[in-house]
C-alpha cells in the first residue's frame, strides 16, 4: 500500500514537471501573420524554448520551455518589446500546448 502511494506521488511529480513549462502571454497589437511570425522567430531563438504557439484570435502567445528550464518575465517582455509588441499579462500554467490548441480550436468553431 505504501509503495503504491510513493509511486502515485512520483507520477504526480513527473506529470507536474512535464506541464510546468507553459507560459501564456496576452499581447496587444497582434493582428497579422507577420506579427506572429516575428514573435515566433524571436522566441524560438531562446535556448529554453521548446515550442511556441501564437493565436491572433486570442491575442495569445504561448511558450513551452524545455524540461527543467524557464524564461523569466523580464526576458519574455524584452523579447516581445524587441519584436515591437506590448505584453499585457504573463501567466504560467500547467496546460500542455496541445490542450491550448484544442481550447483555441473549440473557440473558433
Amino acid at each position: 500500500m505504501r509503495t503504491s502511494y510513493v509511486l502515485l506521488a512520483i507520477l504526480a511529480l513527473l506529470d507536474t514537471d512535464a506541464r510546468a513549462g507553459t507560459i501564456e502571454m496576452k499581447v496587444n497589437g497582434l493582428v497579422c501573420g507577420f506579427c506572429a511570425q516575428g514573435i515566433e522567430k524571436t522566441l524560438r531563438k531562446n535556448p529554453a524554448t521548446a515550442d511556441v504557439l501564437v493565436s491572433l484570435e486570442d491575442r495569445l502567445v504561448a511558450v513551452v520551455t524545455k524540461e527543467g528550464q524557464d524564461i523569466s518575465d523580464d526576458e519574455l517582455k524584452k523579447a516581445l518589446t524587441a519584436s515591437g509588441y506590448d505584453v499585457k499579462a504573463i501567466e504560467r500554467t500547467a496546460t500542455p500546448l496541445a490542450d491550448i490548441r484544442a481550447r483555441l480550436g473549440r473557440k473558433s468553431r
Partner: protein
Amino acid sequence: MNLRLRCAPGALSCMAVLFSFPAFAKPIAFANGTTVMAEYGAGTMRELQVFYAPRYFFSAGLGHIALDSDIDDRSRDITYARLNYLVKRWNLESAQANIFTWGSAGRATTGDDGAGHFAWNTGAQFDYETRRVYGSLKSDYYSSSAFSHRIDTLQLGVAPYAHDYSTLATWFVVQARQYTGQIHNGTEVALLLRLFKRGAWIEAGPTTDGKVQAMFMLNF
C-alpha cells in the same frame, strides 16, 4: 527638361502629402527579418525592393523603380539604397497602427539620354489594421536633376473572415493611386484580391482601365 513636382488637386493628393496608408505591405516586417517585395503597377510603375531589418523599427536595403510615363512617353529608372524607420507604433487590443518613414539615395536614368543622375527619395506611410478592416496611405517623393515626381497610394481593405496565424488571410482591397511629375494623369483605381499566409503575400487585380495591378511579398 526638368519636370517639376506638380500637386494635383483632389482629396487623395491633399491627404497624401506626407503620410500614406499602405496595406499591410510594410517596409519593416519584423526584427531579424528579410523582406522581398515586387510590384507591377498597371503598366506605369514596376518596383523591386529587398530589405533586412536588424531591429523591428529599422531596416535597410536596395530597390529599383521603373516608371513609364503615358504623358510624355519617357521612362525613368531609379536604383537606390534605402533606410526605413518606424516612427511610431500603436499596439491596441485588437488593432495596430504605424507611421513609417524612409529615405534613399541612388542613381537615376531617363529614356532621353541614358545618362546617370543622382537621385534621392523620401516617403512616409500610415496604416491602421484590425483583422477585418485595413487602411493605409503612402506617399513617395523622388527627385533628381532630370525629374521629380510623387506617388500617392491609398488602400482600403476588408476581410470576409478574421484569419489566424496558421490560416490563409483573404482581403478585398480598393487601391487609388496618383502620380505627379508627368507620369500619369488622373487617379488609377484598382480592385485587388490579397492573399497571405505566414510570410508569403500576393495581391492582384484589375484597374478601372483594364490593366493589371499586382504585388508579391515574402518575409523570412
